[in-house]
């Protein structure tokens, strides 16, 4: 699991730099909007593609760079995140959880976009997509050109993944 070499050359960012930005952005989003403090770990060496009882929020980047920013949470943590964001107890995965995880992916995607594009007009962010279920696979996470960072909060682990490619 490493940063695409084309990306490293084009952005002049090392994998550690990019991981550092993602860690910093994730911590800021969680501390400001979710009221949770995070501990981060070293980026994963092996891909994680299968998820069990989880919720995944994703946002796509398209333009001079293409890619996917994704957040993968156990269902119980997704419920806590949504409850904190809404200021009320949420006990079932549904529209509220999908919206909350999508918005977190959107904010993280915004950070990545800003790192890659100072002006902001050459990269577009997609509307977030959220999936959840008992068992599912996310194929974009199978690629070795993907940085995946584990975080821990409230004794639960979640992942933030970033897959990037340079167009042209």
């Amino acid at each position, binding site marked *: 699991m490493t940063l695409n070499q084309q990306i490293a050359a084009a952005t002049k960012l090392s994998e550690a730099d990019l991981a550092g930005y993602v860690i910093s952005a994730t911590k*800021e*989003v969680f501390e*400001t*909007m979710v009221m949770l403090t995070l501990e981060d770990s070293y980026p994963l060496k092996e891909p994680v593609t299968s998820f069990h009882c989880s919720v995944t929020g994703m946002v796509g980047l398209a333009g001079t760079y293409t890619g996917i920013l994704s957040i993968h949470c156990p269902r119980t943590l997704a419920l806590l995140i*949504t409850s904190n*964001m*809404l*200021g009320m107890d949420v006990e079932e995965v549904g*529209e*509220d959880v999908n*919206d*909350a995880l*999508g*918005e977190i992916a*959107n*904010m993280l*995607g*915004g*950070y990545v*976009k*800003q790192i890659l*594009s*100072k*002006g*902001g*007009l050459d990269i577009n*962010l997609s*509307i977030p997509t959220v999936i959840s279920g008992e068992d599912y696979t996310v194929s974009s996470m199978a690629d070795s050109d993907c940085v995946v960072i584990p975080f821990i909060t409230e004794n639960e682990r979640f992942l933030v993944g970033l897959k990037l490619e340079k167009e042209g």
Partner: protein
Amino acid sequence: MANILIVDDSSTMRKIISRSLRQAGLPVDEIYEAGDGIEGLSVMEGKSIQLILSDINMPNMDGLEFIKSVRAKGVSTPIVMITTEGGEDILKEAISSGASDSIKKPFTPEQLQEKLGGML
């Protein structure tokens, strides 16, 4: 006391903005919500609104088109973009389309107070 319209496709974000406005101690009366620019234009009809807070990246009608449509109607209500979009060119385009200012997500109630306090 001001009536405020929040235009954002995320219902979670609309709730966070709404709660943060009150936490910031801003003089807020009614808060109206819309999920995209088209709904925003519809919600505005016949209402007295003193401030509009709008996202940029939304389906159906995005924030930039929404500002242009509001200004095309001759409405001069201040519009502040609350968005994940921090790019200089996008924000310049928003300002040239008629936005008054922008706030980057994520934000704190204190940042809302700082940016919006003088407008209300």
